[in-house]
C-alpha cells in the first residue's frame, strides 16, 4: 500500500478563502554543510516560492539550516508501517555484518 499524502495538486481549483486548499509541502532542512537534508515538518502554501519563504519563517528562525527543500506531500510515496515484510528481508542475512566473522585475537584489530 502506498500513502498518497493529502493536499491539492496544480489542477485543484481554489477559491482562496482558506489555506487547506493550498497544497501541503514537506520541509527538509540541511543543518550544516556536509550534512544531509532532514525532514523538519510541513506547511501549506500556494506555490513553491511561498512554501520556501514560509519554511524559512516557520522552521529556521534561529539559524537551524543552511539549505531548505520543500517537496509537495503528494510527491512522496511511503512504505506502509504495517508491512513488516518490505524492510525485514535482511534479518536472515547476518553474514552482511562484520561481527559475523571471527578473527583470531592474534591478528589484532581489523
Amino acid at each position, binding site marked *: 500500500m502506498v500513502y498518497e499524502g*493529502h493536499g491539492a495538486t*496544480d489542477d485543484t481549483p*481554489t*477559491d*482562496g*478563502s*482558506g*489555506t*487547506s*486548499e*493550498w497544497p*501541503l509541502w514537506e520541509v527538509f532542512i540541511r543543518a550544516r554543510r556536509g550534512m544531509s537534508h532532514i525532514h523538519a*515538518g*510541513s*506547511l*501549506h*502554501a*500556494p*506555490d513553491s*516560492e*511561498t512554501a520556501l519563504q514560509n519554511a524559512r*519563517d*516557520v*522552521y529556521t*528562525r*534561529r539559524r537551524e539550516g543552511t539549505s531548505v527543500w520543500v517537496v509537495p506531500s503528494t510527491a512522496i510515496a511511503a512504505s506502509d508501517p504495517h508491512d513488516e515484510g518490505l524492510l525485514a528481508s535482511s534479518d536472515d542475512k547476518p553474514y552482511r555484518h562484520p561481527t559475523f566473522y571471527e578473527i583470531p585475537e592474534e591478528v589484532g584489530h581489523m
Partner: protein
Amino acid sequence: MQPEGNWITRAPSLKRKAILMAKVQDEAGHGLYLYSAAETLGVTRDEVVDKLHTGRHKYSSIFNYPTVTWADIGAIGWLVDGAAITNQVMLTRCSYGPYARAMVRICKEESFHQRQGYEIMLTLSKGTPAQKDMAQDALDRWWWPSLMMFGPPDADSTHSEQSMEWKIKRVSNDDLRQQFIDMTVPQAEYLGLAIPDPDLAWNEARGHYDIGPIDWDEFWEVVAGRGPMNQERIDHKNQMWDDNAWVREAASAHARKQRKTA
C-alpha cells in the same frame, strides 16, 4: 489587537519590542506545528481553524485573562510560559510522534520566552517602588490562573485517565502542578515578591510546597467561555481572518497565474 499584542507598540524600549515580536513569531510557529500535527490525524487546516473561530474548539484558558500592565508581559513569560514548558517537556515523550516532535521544537523556543519574562520581572522588582508594585500586582493576578493551566485535579479530570492510558500524558495534572510550584516559589523569593497564597508553606515531610485551595469555579467558568476575555479573543481572531482574506486570495491568484504562464 489581542490583549497581549497591545504591548508590542507600548514596550518600554526598542530591545523589549524586538524581543516581544520574536516571541510572537515563535508562538505563531508553535500554532502551526500543532496544526500540522493535528492534520496528520486526517482533519483539514480549515476545519480546525473554523472550529476555533466558531467557539467549538477549546484552547488554553489562560488566554482569556487581560494584560493590563507591562509587568503582565513579564509574568506571562515567567509563569504562563513556565507552566507551559512543564507540561510540554512531558509531552516530548508522548506516544504520538507528530505531537512529540512538535513539542521538542516548542520546548527549545519556550525556554527563551520564560527567561525573557523572568528578566522583565527582575528588572521591575529592582526598580522604583512603583515598578516593584507593578510586578507584584502582575504576580497576584497570574499566579492562580497559571496553576489552573495544569487542568483540574486528577480526580475531576475527564480526559486524564484516557490520555494516561494512551501515554499522551505521562504525568498527572496534580504532579505537574506540584513540579511547577516547587520550581517557581524560590524564583519568586529571589525577586522579593510574595506568592498570593497565605497557605503556601514548605512541607518537610512531603518534600514539596503545600498550597491553599484553587478556585475551580473560576476555572470552569473560563473554560466554558465566560472568562474575562473569551469573547474579545475569538471576535478578534474572526476579524483578523476576514480582514486578511485578501492576502490569502492574492497568494492563490498569484500561484494560479504562475502555473498558467509556466
